[in-house]
């Protein structure tokens, strides 16, 4: 990282990144299991193509290797915050639809939601380390909530959410690994280029 980086900051970053990598790895494994259970219990076709759903952050990115450290952290944070809201919504819908009938799926969803929240917090810690202000969470920003979806549409959206989350979990591992790499001497140091 940049010359302005103190050894303790570098150590803390490395530590946060390693733990983040483990968190993301575990999260991915759980999301993949949840995806299998979800597909089965919702009676969906696992190979169904789901069009990009509004509000679901896409993991797909161009020129990924050119991103700065700060960009990576900010994009990850925005994504996991969005997933936190989406999963909470799915959990709510799940409870409405099935009550206690599908407690297993509900529990698995809640567990993943917890990990997503934990990971979002982890990312905030990393951003603090970069002396970056953490973007506030915009509660009521953006378009008004879409009209209530039919049950089938809810299920398809759920599939889309979990699939993108699984991709994000892999991307996050890669992003955090990039953060632990020493930055090239000539390139802008990820995260610490602009000092006040």
């Amino acid at each position, binding site marked *: 990282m940049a010359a302005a980086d103190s050894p303790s900051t570098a150590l803390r970053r490395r530590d946060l990144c390693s733990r983040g990598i483990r968190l993301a790895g575990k999260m991915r494994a759980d999301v993949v299991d949840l995806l299998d259970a979800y597909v089965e219990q919702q009676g969906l076709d696992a190979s169904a193509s789901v069009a990009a759903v509004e509000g679901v952050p896409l993991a797909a990115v161009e020129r*990924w*290797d050119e991103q700065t450290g700060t960009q990576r952290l900010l994009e990850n944070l925005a994504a996991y915050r969005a997933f936190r809201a989406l999963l909470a919504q799915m959990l709510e819908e799940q409870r409405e639809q099935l009550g206690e009938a599908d407690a297993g799926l509900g529990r698995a969803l809640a567990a993943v939601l917890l990990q997503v929240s934990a990971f979002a917090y982890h990312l905030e810690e990393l951003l603090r380390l970069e002396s970056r202000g953490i973007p506030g969470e915009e509660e009521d920003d953006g378009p008004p909530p879409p009209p209530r979806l039919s049950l089938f549409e809810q299920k398809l959206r759920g599939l889309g959410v979990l699939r*993108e989350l699984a991709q994000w979990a*892999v991307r996050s591992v890669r992003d955090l690994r990039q953060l632990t790499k020493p930055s090239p001497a000539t390139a802008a140091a990820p995260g610490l280029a602009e000092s006040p």
Partner: protein
Amino acid sequence: DGPIQYERVGADVTMKCGSMDWDAAVTWTVNGTDINESHLNGSYLILRNVNLSQSGQYACYEGSSWHLKYQTYLRVGTPPKEPVLMCRSNNYPKGFYCSWHLPTPTYIPNTFNISVIHGTKDMVCEKDAVPKNRCHIRYLQLFSTVKYKVTLTVTNALGKNYTALTFDEFAIVKPDPPESVVAKPVPNNPRRLEVSWQNPSSWPDPESFPLKFFLRYRPLILDQWQHVELSDGTSHTITDAYAGKEYIIQVAAKDNDIGTWSDWSVAVHATPWTEEPKHLTTEAQITETTSASTSSFMAPPTTKICDKGAVVGSGAVAVCWTAGLVVAAYSVLFI
């Protein structure tokens, strides 16, 4: 040389001698050799149920003047069967390549056309010079859930065929096998072998996209493999090798997070370290040693071939149990 005429194996072919009348006197040749008149119907050449060996240069000459009236190059072949297509990313995250071949030859020239679509976006698969039936694509996006569809069409003069593959970015990731696998004995350790290897050179960024490895090993004389999975590092010490036995060792690699295992590396052979057995260099000495005579086996004073605790017996006939096993094994071989 004239035009090329393509015909299917098993077809009946009729060749006319240019503008000559049916009843004109002509001579047909194939590759310069006269064709028997039994194949002629008037001035037409009739080839029934053609086979591959009938490919060649056919020419027709006017009877008396020997003027060349017509020639053609006949190529007998088949329309293409469904091609075999394979796509793989051995250089993730840079891109992937697709390669193809026909399950059976057509014996005539074929043209391959490949198209790659990512969602609704057309992508260009750049053909490799070598090998010919291969093209590569650079990833424009990473971590996409949208699938890729690759369609391969093969066309020749007698027909066409095609095949298609649909896959997502992660599914086709398969590194090349590890390189430079080396296995060495460990001095003074009869049950150890030190194995080391390198990341495949085609894997562009092992630091950001680390590989994990799978090692398998067995003594040549046994069929069952031992397996070890290693999440990092490019070396491993085998500690449970059978003393004195030659081992075969292979390593495979996989991206830590996605995709499938590589093929096994080239196999290497190694035998754990053994004490230089001066006393066991001739058959006579071995047989003598195993018959518990007083001319007993004694380790040379400066070297050990067994652990201290493994010595049984005492005095001049002391024999380590591990050495005894080795000796017993040797004696079994020589019986």
